[in-house]
């Protein structure tokens, strides 16, 4: 057992850290305040190959692995929750679904532009009546000659409107429940495919979250992703990978907040000395660090398990549950350590606290992760 990063992972981590510091951090407050999608950052990530980290070179990817991708999401999240979720939803979900379940032709046509960063990806499962209960899908797809005709809507879709390629789930046989769900690849600009208004969110405000609306949207028959009726497996399989990405995001948010807290308590003086000299501060920091380090190895372990080609559903659920919990806890403690300043936008930690909350909700709530973990225990 070796708990050190390989030289290539360590150098990749340094690259992501430099990029985050120079390109992402300076925009973090602005994209949050004005709910602005950081397109320029996405373009820069594309140029640096950061939108195709785990994918094969054959399809325009970087030929790295899940651990390298996790390091990228983590470093972005340390300074900007928004940027990290754009990267994660694109890589794990949009491109990830096609990478894992697509045919060679589908990968060539759709994964390649996603992996090179020429196009951005998204993943659309959630509906007003179908969140955790994916079988409640109302969106329908009907085969008409050589085309599927999709009708219905999806909500809370990350990267909606900004992404070019969407993996969309729809019922092809309602009577079959989860066995009646199928997955499709839909391109932005397809007639009958529109977007709702952007949602106003508590956190990750620079990321785009919108409704997808399908009215007699016709797509080619060959855009079925995976087999008909196997969409539930596509969704769950993709979300397993996505959970590692969100766990990395949560880890990064916690680390970013701890970095801010450590810097602040050395400067801030009360009763004639820096508040770092008070034992309450020291114990808070120690507890935050302890939780972060435990989380780090759970997240890296989940990634390494996936990279080893072993089943990782439970590892991903464990990592996401723990990391989301720690992100919320550590960012809240950071705000408390900064006191009044912690509540002020300029000091960043209030944004990190708002950003952290979503990690307990999306890509499977913490309750879903508990279901997955306990399900494996009680099998």
């Amino acid at each position, binding site marked *: 057992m070796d708990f050190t990063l*390989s*030289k*290539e992972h360590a*150098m*990749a981590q340094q*690259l992501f850290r*430099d*990029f985050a510091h120079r390109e992402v951090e300076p925009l973090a407050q602005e994209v949050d305040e004005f709910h602005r999608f950081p397109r320029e950052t996405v373009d820069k990530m594309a140029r*640096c*190959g*950061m939108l*195709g*980290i785990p994918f094969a*070179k054959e399809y325009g*990817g*970087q*030929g*790295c692995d899940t651990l*390298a991708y996790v390091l*990228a999401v983590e470093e972005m999240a340390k300074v900007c929750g928004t940027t990290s979720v754009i990267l994660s939803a694109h890589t794990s979900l949009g491109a990830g679904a096609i990478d894992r379940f697509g045919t060679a032709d589908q990968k060539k046509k759709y994964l390649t532009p996603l992996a090179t960063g020429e196009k951005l990806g998204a993943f659309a499962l959630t509906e007003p009546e179908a969140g955790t209960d994916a079988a409640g899908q109302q969106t329908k797809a009907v085969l008409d000659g050589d085309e599927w005709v999709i009708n219905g809507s999806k909500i809370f879709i990350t990267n909606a409107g900004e992404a070019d390629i969407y993996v969309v789930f729809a019922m092809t046989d309602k009577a079959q429940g989860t066995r009646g769900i199928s997955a499709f690849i839909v391109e932005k600009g397809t007639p009958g495919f529109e977007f709702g208004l952007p949602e106003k969110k508590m956190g990750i405000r620079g990321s785009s979250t919108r409704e997808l609306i399908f009215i007699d949207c016709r797509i080619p028959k060959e855009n079925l992703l995976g087999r008909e009726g196997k969409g539930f497996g596509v969704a769950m399989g993709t979300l397993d990978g996505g959970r590692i990405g969100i766990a990395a995001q949560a880890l990064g948010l916690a680390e970013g907040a701890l970095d801010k807290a450590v810097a602040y308590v050395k400067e801030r003086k009360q009763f004639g000395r820096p508040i770092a000299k008070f034992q309450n501060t020291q114990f808070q920091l120690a507890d935050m660090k302890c939780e972060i380090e435990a989380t780090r190895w759970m997240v890296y372990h989940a990634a390494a398990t996936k990279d080893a080609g072993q089943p990782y559903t439970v590892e991903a659920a464990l990592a996401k549950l723990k990391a989301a919990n720690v992100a919320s806890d550590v960012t809240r403690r950071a705000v408390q350590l900064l006191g009044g300043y912690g509540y002020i936008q300029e000091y960043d930690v209030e944004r990190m606290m708002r950003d952290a909350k979503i990690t307990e909700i999306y890509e499977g709530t913490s309750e879903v992760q508990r279901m997955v973990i306990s399900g494996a225990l009680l099998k």
Partner: protein
Amino acid sequence: MNIVVCIKQVPDTNEVRIDPVRGTLIREGVPTIMNPDDKAGLEAALRLKDEMGAKVSVISMGPMQADLVLREALAMGADEAYLVTDRAFGGADTWATSCTLAAAISKMDYDLIITGRQAIDGDTAQVGPEIAEHLQIPNISYAEAVRVEGDEVVVKRQYEDRYHTVRAKMPALLTALSELNDPRYMTPGGIFDAFREKTVTIWTRADVPVDDGNIGLNGSPTRVFRSFPKTVKAPGMKIEEGVDESVQFVMDKLREKYIL
């Protein structure tokens, strides 16, 4: 076209402290980086490669740890990497360093050699031009812009108050300023390839055709007499007059010091 870029691994001087007694850099525990001027030189080479096609080789003299900075260059897009390393080369001053590097480069194909202007840990700016002297090729220092026209390299050369545009027949050497460009990031895939697919060729004493008298500490004519931290300059002067009076005062002072 074959381009050879000399790069040096240096301590990140933003992180470095000075030993108050010995007056030397405390290098222990300080992260290392690619020397910024060298990185600009590498970027210039990679841009020439992108524009007109070229093979870019990087070379460094240093301890085995300098392997990392060469891998970084490979991850940015360099094609080949060479590390000149041997205890016999240790303790070299700029003379011994340039003799060693020139001898190593003489084994390689080159049309253009690019070095950084100077390294942030030594600030001598001597090694690049000395390599050109040893190889008896033209040297253009302080390059702020570079292009290649036929068999000539055209360089915008920076001076304190002006530029010169200088043209030289290749093979030639130029020294790059960090202002030359904004170096690209490595790519994640480039990093993985640098460690998993590519190799750094190691050249030890036996591989480098250079006289014993010109290498290492013994081949170094320079002796450091004393080193000390830079003394703090006198504090500035505050002028609390009206605008016109202040401007007049400043102008008078500048004339007094023959700056104007």
